[in-house]
């Protein structure tokens, strides 16, 4: 039996190569993360104690053409379980061209008890946030996007965690998409995408960032919902207005300048709108990739050399997020070349199936973790559980995303000065026009 097993493996020869890379880089860390979260969640079943005194907090909501969503966003703050007299809301408009102010006024009328103010700034989210931070008076500063809603206990949970550990300088909440909107989506393809997006967010925040957070290696706080100690924030250069990755940048700044922790508050939820189309996803992920590159550039130089592999988590992160992208891209096609060297197509196919199953296995582990972490949130847990089939789809979804990210990397290098990445409809259209023109030229040439 032993002989049969090993001789079969030997026959597979080159095949095992394709499995080694994902096993080494992804499966081993995934198993380790699974165990860490598993035991951490079991060990921390009792929650932190509520503070005897709830501090004054400032909530900043940057607004840009948000008339459709702003009211609901403010409403979610007002319906929060955090003492309302301890909340200051600063809505900061950065050159909206719609009726956002009317939505603000309407919220003011509906919720007169809350301390709410409207500010105007130059265009750009980072500028808006910086101006509002200077005008805030809370001990803690919390940013939320105007197109999302807070879970009622999110603010309490966030502040509770801050108050229980003075070494925490900043925190990110967990972002999920609004399940009610996903349920309402009629288009089958879009619904598939939105379910996967929810699944992805749950995995990324509750598993991915949770692990990063345990080691104080959080790569980025969410731009949609994050909180800071005001004194920690004041030690930084504030939000960088020159990058699209201002959320990544502030994460690094806070950690570097305060020597404090930047962590995830897994039970503070903020619900954003699900993605509206594949085109939006295509643009969004390229923008995220660009942000990562821009911030990494800023922190590059001697700090990112290979000699810092063990001491600097950013190096390891870049290897996985950036370097592997190139390796994976070319090896997908390099494996096809094996067929021309009389390699068995069946074995090649088997290798892809095995890799796929490996990713399914990893996604299954995360699924278990997230279910454990959602214990106190029965509605979300129930919905997440209904996404069970995503375990089998997520490897395909991630595969598609990896191509979009690669496109983002190359586009950033070429177009960084004038970032005008087109959506894929426009790209197809441009290609179509050129091919059509060429065809007309050839046809015309022949006629002559």
């Amino acid at each position, binding site marked *: 039996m032993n002989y049969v097993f*090993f001789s079969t*493996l*030997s026959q597979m*020869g*080159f095949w*095992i*190569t394709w499995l*080694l*890379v994902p096993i*080494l880089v992804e499966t081993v860390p995934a198993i380790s993360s699974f165990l860490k979260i598993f035991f951490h969640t079991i060990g921390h079943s009792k929650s932190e104690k509520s503070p005897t005194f709830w501090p004054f907090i400032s909530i900043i909501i940057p607004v840009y053409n948000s008339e459709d969503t702003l009211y609901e966003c403010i409403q979610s703050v007002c319906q929060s379980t955090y003492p309302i007299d301890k909340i200051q809301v600063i809505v900061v408009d950065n050159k909206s061209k719609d009726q956002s102010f009317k939505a603000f006024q309407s919220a003011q009328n509906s919720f007169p008890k809350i301390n709410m103010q409207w500010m105007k700034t130059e265009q750009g989210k980072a500028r808006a946030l910086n101006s509002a931070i200077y005008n805030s008076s809370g001990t803690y500063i919390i940013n939320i996007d105007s197109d999302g809603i807070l879970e009622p206990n999110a603010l309490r949970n966030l502040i509770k965690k801050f108050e229980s550990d003075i070494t925490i300088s900043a925190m990110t909440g967990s972002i999920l998409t609004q399940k009610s909107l996903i349920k309402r989506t009629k288009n089958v393809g879009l619904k598939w995408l939105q379910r996967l997006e929810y699944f992805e967010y749950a995995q990324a925040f509750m598993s991915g960032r949770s692990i990063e957070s345990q080691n104080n290696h959080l790569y980025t706080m969410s731009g949609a919902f994050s909180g800071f100690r005001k004194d920690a924030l004041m030690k930084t250069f504030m939000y960088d207005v*020159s990058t699209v990755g201002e959320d990544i940048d502030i994460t690094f700044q806070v950690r570097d300048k305060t020597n404090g922790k930047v962590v995830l508050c897994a039970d503070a939820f903020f619900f954003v709108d699900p993605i509206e189309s594949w085109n939006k996803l295509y643009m969004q992920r390229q923008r995220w990739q660009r942000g990562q*590159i*821009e911030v*990494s*550039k*800023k922190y*590059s*130089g001697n700090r*990112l*050399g*290979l000699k810092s592999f063990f001491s600097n988590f950013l*190096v390891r992160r*870049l*290897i996985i997020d*950036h*370097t*592997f992208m*190139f*390796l994976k*891209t*070319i*090896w997908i*096609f*390099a494996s096809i*070349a*094996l067929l*021309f*060297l009389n390699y068995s197509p069946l074995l090649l196919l088997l290798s892809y199936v095995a890799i796929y199953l490996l990713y399914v296995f990893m996604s299954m582990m995360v699924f278990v973790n997230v279910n454990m972490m959602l214990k106190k949130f029965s509605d979300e847990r129930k919905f997440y559980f209904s996404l069970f089939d995503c375990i089998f789809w997520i490897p395909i979804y991630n595969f598609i995303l990896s191509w979009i990210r*690669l*496109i*983002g*990397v*190359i*586009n950033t*290098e*070429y*177009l*960084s000065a004038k970032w005008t990445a*087109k959506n894929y409809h426009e*790209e197809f259209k*441009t*290609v179509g026009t*050129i*091919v059509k023109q*060429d065809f007309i030229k050839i046809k015309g040439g022949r006629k002559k």
Partner: protein
Amino acid sequence: MSIFLLISGVIWLYALSVFKRANLPAFYFIVGSIGLFFILFFFSKPYFIWIMARAVTFAVSLVAHPLNLATVYLDYGLIAINNGFNMITMSIDYECSGVIETAAFWALLAFYPMYQAKEKAVLALLGLLWMYVTNVIRLILIVLIVHTFGVDYFFLAHSIIGRIVFYIFAVFFYYKVFTYGYLAKNKKKV
């Protein structure tokens, strides 16, 4: 060259021209790299593979012979590893030649927008050398393990440890060229 290859080549060149004119650098890079990889691969078959396999075998023989770890048959690309009692023969073929890995690296580098032509030429040479040396280290490691622990360890040495070592070296080189080189170079632009 088969007609199939010729037609594919023409289509590839036309696609590149379209992406260039459409100002779509990402697609230019992706389609360019993949196409060039196949071109390099088909041109390397069988001669470049043969040369590289012999070159690798030769380098291994320089270590294996004096230390009496294995008998290397240069003409046949064979390495017979012994551990006193048993012997196993390892054939240096396309898998061990490092040609596929080198072609993959060259293809990506050629279309990577970051470097100038001169820099690319230097990096291409460095890449060839790096893959070659890494491959030699991998094979010497296999020889050492099998010689010391016996032929039962061949699978572990060849398919697991050898490959892990090779990929760690390859990843480091890719990081240096595609990630670090690019970030460090662009730092001043930010």
